[in-house]
């Protein structure tokens, strides 16, 4: 029997910066028996604008995404806890009391973060593989506190050699445009995180949000650290 038909939202960062994560997401979904569609016209969920206080522009972007997604059916799967949380929790809030409120609620109810969807909705049989690398996992904040993604990530990572990471529930200091607006503060928080990652003796850092991972990867690279950085989708599917 064919698995569920899903609508993939790859996020703006994956689309432009790490398309291999998008391809790995498709592969992970297909290996789990899903059929994947990619709604044309998708762009950005609008979170950057919401977080800087440009709420009206966030609404414009959100409205565009709502129109794109409302023309489709089935679960909307996002390989990012942060963007998924934006769509699930903030879309209904941003349009509260407007004529788009119903639409926002309708679409929000369909949105799932990737690991959440694979574990809770599909009950996937696939498990992550790091090709023998010892990993540490960073729980990104929005997915962790907003969606409870520690449980689903842990489930998928069962079987991978995973080392403890001190402070793995603490913010990495990225914070979206915070990383550009408050560089020394963001960098200091990041450095503390990188110290712990390096002290763990892991060979690979894995997470569920490309945004935080780009920040940490950029910092590790600047240090000359050999630690590899991967999105969890890349441990679940083939992104080549």
């Amino acid at each position: 029997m064919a698995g569920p038909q899903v609508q993939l939202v790859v996020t703006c960062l994956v689309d432009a910066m790490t398309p291999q994560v998008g391809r790995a997401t498709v592969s992970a979904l297909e290996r789990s028996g899903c059929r994947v569609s990619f709604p044309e016209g998708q762009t950005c969920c609008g979170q950057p604008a919401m977080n800087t206080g440009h709420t009206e522009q966030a609404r414009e972007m959100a409205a565009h995404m709502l129109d794109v997604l409302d023309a489709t059916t089935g679960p909307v799967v996002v390989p990012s806890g942060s963007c998924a949380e934006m769509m699930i929790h903030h879309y209904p809030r941003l349009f509260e009391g407007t004529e788009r409120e119903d639409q926002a609620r309708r679409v929000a109810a369909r949105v799932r973060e990737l690991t959440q969807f694979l574990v809770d909705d599909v009950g996937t049989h696939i498990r992550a593989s790091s090709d023998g690398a010892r990993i540490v996992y960073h729980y990104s904040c929005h997915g962790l506190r907003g969606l409870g993604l520690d449980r689903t990530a842990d489930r998928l990572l069962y079987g991978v050699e995973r080392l403890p990471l001190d402070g793995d529930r603490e913010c990495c200091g990225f914070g979206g445009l915070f990383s550009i607006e408050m560089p020394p503060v963001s960098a200091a928080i990041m450095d503390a995180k990188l110290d712990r990652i390096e002290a763990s003796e892991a060979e690979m850092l894995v997470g569920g949000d490309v945004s935080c991972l780009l920040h940490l990867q950029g910092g590790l690279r600047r240090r000359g650290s050999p630690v590899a950085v991967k999105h969890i989708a890349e441990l679940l599917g083939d992104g080549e």
Partner: protein
Amino acid sequence: MSQPVGFLGRAAAIVGSEEGAAVDRGARQFTLSRSLALAELPIADDLRKRARAIRLRSLANLDRLLSRFTDEATAAGCRVHFAGDADEANRIVAGLLAGSTLVAKSKSMVSEEIGLNSHLESLGIDVVETDLGEYITQLAGDTPSHIIAPVLHMTRQQVGRLFADKLGVEYTDDPIRLNRHTRETLRGVFLAADAGISGVNMAIADTGSLVLVTNEGNGRLVTSAPKVHIALLGMERIVGSWDEAGVILETLARSATGQRLSVYTTVITGPRRPQDPDGPDEVHVVIIDNGRSDVLAGETAEILACIRCGACLNVCPVFRTVGGHGYGTVYSGPVGAVLTPGLMGPDPWWDLPYASTLCGACEEVCPVGIRIPTMLLHLREQAASEGRLPGWLNRGMRLYTRAAVEPARWARLRRTARRLSAPFSVRGWIRRLPGPARGWTASRDLPRPAKTSFAEWWREHRGA
């Protein structure tokens, strides 16, 4: 942000310093103690729900509670004063202290908020802080860096040097000996003071009582040894009943220091009665608004539910990095980023709501579940709409938004970004960018945008 001082300027001076490291150590210790203290409760989340309901109910009925409190406290023999703003509060206190020369003070954040010490000192009144942390702060000519631990930013070696320098005692970094010096100095102050000034952790409307939560015993001495006790009460720090107060006390110390209860929980209902062996002849309660009514009427009213435990400071990655001094004001950390612009207005405090990664740890630990990140977003919206953000950010966001709502333009924007990145890239990585983006590359590399976007790949390989 773009202005030279402000949060970023203050923070940059602290990041990576001894002060930053001391704050991080202290804040983590508090966080650990809090987790352990809450873990022993069967249903900590239930306590949180009850505490939240109580505080929100208090705010919803604030007029009625304050009026009831005033009646009951007056009936118990207190005199209750209302102060609309900081100046009025300072005038009232100064009026009550006419003729006084020495005042013993226990910890009060609202007194810091209104600048009481400097006002009284300008009138020739000696004010001595008797909370150990506040005493050190005063000795150092510093300001508190944490709402419950004023010298979180100092090491005990620094305190030892300060004592040697200011008190002329032999250097030691042994906390017990440092404490003994403090006690020897302060005993005399308690006995000689004309009046004691304290804050209030919570007022109880039903009985007109004041509750003080302290650990050092100084609060009890300040409120009982001198003949006059003046209590400063932030207008919102009130609950209706003792049942409600019990719930708040159950969570306050656990959330703040990880204690089940603080060492002293002092209840004051009126001045000394004829049969009492000691106690003040006069108790004055100064209820201070100072912007609280405005906050209560606005979108961030819920911040007034705060019980000042400091848990949100201790878990905040930004606070842990810069400490309270980065915020430049008495209320720091996540709660301060909301409360300060609310009480004191957006000038120059509008940038504090941006001093957050929006990680949500504050809301997660708040014993009354205040939705701090949502309020930070609201205050950011206000700052942006008032045109306070730098031009590059506004222009960039406009450009980005226009592209994001028009897919063809979106694809062009991505290709343009890829093209523009070429001269900065070496083997797919960027080490230095000009303009505002240098904030990123100051400490991190950036991968060059991909040659083929995911959307392009999909169209080529999977498209219909």
